[in-house]
């Protein structure tokens, strides 16, 4: 990886994080939405202790997936405002550097939301979520989600119906990562054997590698007019 390529990736990530720290538009939307989803679950489902531990993984990943979609949409919409996407495409670097820069910042936003949602859920439902394995699965699932989400949001941002189109494109594609993340998280929460969890973790790893490689290869075509 050349220095200019790495510098371009870091420049895109730096730009996104700096702009977001200043405006807080994207993070606040994701956070408010996540808290609302948790509250809806809390009031809609009166759960006993046993049921609670069974649905925790699903409830968490539904929250992450919906909040993540909001973030992905906004992150690419910022590039479309004021023609900034053209500004990025005019830069003489391999366009996959733009993808990796955007994916890194999207991952940072998602992890920031998760860092708040996990303790909040833990307090609301009195469930311990701080197992190293569960945190690892959260990271792997988030990597897979943002790898695909960044690619598809670059595709959908070119259309007039981008807000609607992204979840329609994204959710079918992330079913494997979603199912694997829920199963692996549930396994850690319910004290399952490592041998039961490892196939789901492997699926997450393979999914992450495949979609990062696919995005690297096709982003140039996806982003072009």
């Amino acid at each position: 990886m050349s220095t200019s390529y790495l510098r371009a990736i870091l420049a895109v990530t730096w730009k996104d994080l700096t702009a977001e720290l200043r405006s807080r538009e994207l993070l606040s939307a994701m956070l408010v939405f996540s808290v609302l989803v948790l509250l809806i679950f809390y009031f809609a489902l009166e759960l006993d202790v046993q049921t609670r531990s069974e649905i925790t993984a699903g409830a968490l990943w539904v929250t992450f997936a919906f909040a993540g979609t909001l973030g992905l949409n906004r992150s690419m919409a910022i590039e479309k405002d004021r023609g900034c996407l053209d500004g990025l495409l005019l830069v003489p670097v391999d366009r996959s550097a733009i993808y990796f820069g955007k994916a890194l910042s999207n991952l940072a936003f998602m992890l920031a939301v998760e860092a708040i949602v996990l303790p909040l859920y833990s307090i609301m439902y009195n469930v311990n979520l701080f197992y190293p394995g569960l945190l690892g699965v959260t990271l792997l699932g988030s990597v897979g989600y943002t790898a695909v989400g960044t690619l598809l949001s670059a595709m959908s941002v070119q259309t007039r119906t981008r807000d609607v189109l992204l979840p329609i494109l994204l959710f079918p594609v992330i079913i494997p990562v979603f199912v694997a993340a829920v199963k692996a998280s549930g396994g850690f929460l319910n004290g399952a054997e490592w041998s039961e969890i490892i196939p789901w973790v492997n699926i997450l790893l393979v999914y992450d590698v495949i979609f990062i490689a696919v995005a690297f290869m096709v982003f140039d075509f996806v982003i072009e007019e």
Partner: protein
Amino acid sequence: MSPSIEVTRLVKRFGLKNVLRGLDFQVQSGEFVALLGPNGAGKTTFLRILASLSRPTLGQVRVAGHRLPEQSAAVRRRLGVVSHLPLLYGDLTAEENLQFYGRMYGVPNLNVRIQEVLDMVGLSTRRRDLVRTFSRGMQQRLAIGRAVLHDPDVMLFDEPYTGLDQDASEMLDSVLKNVAAAGRTVVMTSHDLARAEDLATRFDVLSRGVIAASVTRTDLQNSNLLTFYKQALAG
């Protein structure tokens, strides 16, 4: 000396619609060409192809000695583009915007270069202000600063005066003259014939997807641009 921009039989098709129909176009190094034409003539489409933002359907395009779209990275390194949108981030300051683009282009001695550019566009005192607080005219001046940051040989301006008031347009005139005076090759689309006449050394009229007429400032001396433009569209 080979031309800075050389376009041969360029065709651009969107679905069944031919926007550019076998367009031929050449610009010598250091020329300032005003590309005139009515709405829908294909000016923006043509500039987007020159900027490597859109692929030609047919034909050959060379910019700064490199073929498009095959050598688009080499072309982008030597190209500066200003459109009616500023291509700037509203939540970053003027300085941060230039830092970002400077890093992307790998500009050496970036801080010194940023200072030079901000001085050139008259925004040194506003360097730490957020771009979203800038007037349209200031944003457009900073957009020119962004476009010249990496010292390109060829500059493309797509309707740079859109939405500017009289004062801001006059200020942009002087910035554009500075840009052209540095010996750069400039192609500018515009509906504003008076401004084009003041700035350009050659005037091309794009109509129905081809260059309908072309005249240099020297040849135009005893005529006026409006008459030439109307005749070109009528013919």
